[in-house]
């Protein structure tokens, strides 16, 4: 399953795949960046509804996007993150820059 991208009201919604590891992380980052360049994106919402697994490659995706969007005042959100993904966001310190929502 691949990540799905949609722009809704200047927010980029990224529906994350079932498994996020190094194998797919590059493609997700590149695709997200193409949206950031093309549209005037104010924020990115990562939707983890279908995600069963994520490792530090997912942290890299979020960190990289944060670096690009934060200098334009954009924000990053995470929705539908299960317990394990929350743990990863907390341990990596990403919870300080990502707004984790239900």
């Amino acid at each position, binding site marked *: 399953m691949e990540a799905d991208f949609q722009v809704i009201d200047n927010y980029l919604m990224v529906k994350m795949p079932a498994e996020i590891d190094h194998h797919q992380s590059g493609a997700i980052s590149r695709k997200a960046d193409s949206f950031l360049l093309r549209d005037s994106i104010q924020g990115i919402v990562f939707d983890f509804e279908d995600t069963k*697994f994520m490792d530090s490659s997912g*942290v890299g995706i979020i960190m990289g996007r944060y670096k690009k969007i934060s200098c334009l005042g954009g924000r990053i959100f995470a929705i539908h993150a299960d317990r*394990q993904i929350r743990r990863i966001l907390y341990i990596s*310190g990403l919870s300080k820059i990502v707004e984790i929502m239900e």
Partner: protein
Amino acid sequence: MKQEEKKISRGYDNELRMEFDAVSCNESFARMAVSAFIAPLNPTMEEMADVKTAVSEAVTNAIIHGYGNVQGYIPGHMQCPREISVGKVRMYCRIEGDVLAVEIEDDGQGIDNVEQALEPLFTTKPELERSGMGFAFMEAFMDDLQILSAPGRGCKIVMEKKLGSMPWLEEDE
């Protein structure tokens, strides 16, 4: 002899040894294999996720940093990236009682400074958006982590974790 009997009565001892190409599609294969291997121990969901994450980190390290295969690649499905260095990752898992030991070994370039590599957020490949959290996750999710490596001489990660840490669920003997 007596000791042997005791060991068997403790239940489930098992070993798994495998070797695979250092390409990114094998990252999910490696963690699936480990999760299937430990399934008979009835680990909790959290333990299962912890082991999968730690194995994924170690295998990804071997592939990206050991052999420098930074591109996502499935043999036969995608155009082969220009530089794929041929190498193998070896994985060895052992269950003794309720303790899982995992060793992940490569013959890649090794680590110059292990202490530095262990620092959270330190990465030698920031341009690839590696987060530098790999070893931090291995440490956080497993009970024990050892790194045996020298420049040019590959790397061996040894991790241990006690599984099924819910004794009230155990049957009476």
